[in-house]
């Protein structure tokens, strides 16, 4: 798994992909930080995270679209799948590489935090839990993305599908609570319970609960499991 992780991480920076992702992310963060914090004279990073969360959804597919689709297109999956590595290790190695890029990018937003501490009096634990929530939300998007890229041979299809699923998750959450379906009175609360965003907002509000943590981690684990199953299933069916 270590070898797959290392190769994948390197390939983000052999190609422009990693730099493009980081560049766009940091540019947007900079703009929101300027308008939401510096110009408003606010030390609350929660506003920044909230505004970022939607755009985040747009740029996340860039990070994941290549992961498995490109292996199939270039037929390099033959190298991986005929090696002694179990499929799960391949998926996990690639997933960890993608969230490492995400974590590195978030690390580069540190100057914003430093500025806040120099010129204001932010609440440190609030910032920490905001970062944690944002990272967990991103890690969930990556898990959606890796599943989508296992389903197709085209990077573009993978990116569009990832975007579509992410959008649907967000859409469900905004309309879910107001749904009034006959015979299914439990539906709005069920959707509310499954919501990634409600849990994410709890983090930005400074509430770190074990239940939310476990929810994010299980969400990711289920998607990674499905990804490995998709790869296995394709081998049984196709040439």
């Amino acid at each position: 798994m270590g070898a797959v992780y290392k190769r994948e991480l390197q390939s983000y920076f052999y190609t422009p992909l990693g730099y493009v992702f980081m560049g766009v992310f940091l540019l947007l963060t900079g703009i929101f930080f300027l308008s939401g914090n510096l110009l408003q004279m606010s030390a609350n990073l929660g506003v920044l995270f909230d505004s970022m969360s939607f755009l985040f959804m747009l740029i996340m597919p860039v990070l994941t679209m290549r992961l498995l689709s490109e292996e199939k297109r270039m037929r390099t999956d033959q190298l991986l799948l005929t090696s002694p590595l179990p499929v799960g290790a391949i998926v996990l190695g690639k997933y960890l590489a993608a969230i490492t890029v995400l974590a590195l990018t978030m690390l580069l937003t540190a100057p914003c935090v430093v500025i806040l501490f120099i010129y204001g009096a932010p609440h440190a634990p609030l910032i920490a839990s905001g970062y944690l929530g944002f990272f967990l939300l991103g890690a969930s998007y990556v898990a959606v993305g890796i599943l989508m890229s296992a389903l197709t041979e085209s990077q573009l299809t993978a990116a569009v599908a990832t975007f579509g699923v992410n959008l649907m998750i967000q859409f469900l959450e905004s309309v879910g609570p107001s749904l009034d379906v006959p015979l299914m009175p439990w539906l709005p609360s069920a959707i509310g319970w499954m919501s990634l965003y409600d849990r994410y907002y709890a983090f930005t509000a400074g509430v770190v609960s074990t239940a939310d943590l476990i929810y994010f981690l299980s969400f990711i684990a289920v998607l990674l499991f499905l990804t490995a199953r998709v790869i296995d299933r394709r081998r049984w069916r196709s040439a």
Partner: protein
Amino acid sequence: MIELKNVTKRYGDVLAADNVSFRVEVGQILGFLGRNGAGKSTTLSIASGYIPATEGQVLLDGHDILEEPRYVKRRIGYLPEQPPLYPDMTVDEYLRFACRIKEVDKRRVASHVGELCELTGLTDHRKRLIRHLSKGYCQRVGMAQALAGNPEVLLLDEPTVGLDPKQIIGIRELIKALGRDHAIVLSSHILTEVADVCERVAIIGQGRILAQDTLDNLAGGQDDARRVRLRAAGAEGEIAGVLNALPGLRALEPMGVKEPGTFDFILESARADDLRPAASNALAAAGHPVVMMRPMDMNLEDIFLRLTGEVDS
């Protein structure tokens, strides 16, 4: 030793491999011969563990590839038809990666990559990006990848496709040398290649193994007839008269005039009888000198065409 037992692969109604069985010991090279689309690549994909068989078993020293994938896959090197290369890596990085996922001991990776490059003639290209390599060098990197971790079984799918004649000879020599201490399955649609490299051949058509034997047996054992093509000076009727009188002649087939003033025949006899001295003496005595005579052993090409032709009809 690798063994395929009644391997069948179905895609819907299509049988890509139909009850394929073979067994290759260390020190042997099995030539896997078939037209394009005959099922060679499918069979090798199954043997490598890339795709599972619908029915049947792949065994390496008795270990099933589906039950003990890690044990078996560590001992198989696979060069697919299109080498699985990452264009954004250098040769060196790629081979290190291949060694790592083949579970080569971390401390040995550097020296092992050196050996692989030495063996495949890549030493001067180690720092180059794979995307900048020619097709021939890509094939060599693919070959080096298959050899990573010193697997005892090598599955090579059309390893010489797209190479120039000199590179082809180089790769064949390498395969022959490796054949001494590996079990190798070499798939090809080039007959001369198989004849040159392999001692045993399996001919495959429409997913089925049509014949499987040593080259000598395949070439000799097709029937018990011996055929000789003969060209003698004179007219058809006169020459035929002399030849028909030969003891042991089973059939005489006129082949027409290929050279002015001569006529061609094919003489068929039992395998045990050699008609050539008698035919030569008799024709010379009758004033029809023999100007050409050659035995017509079935070569691999004939066998191949006959077997694959049978499938078509």
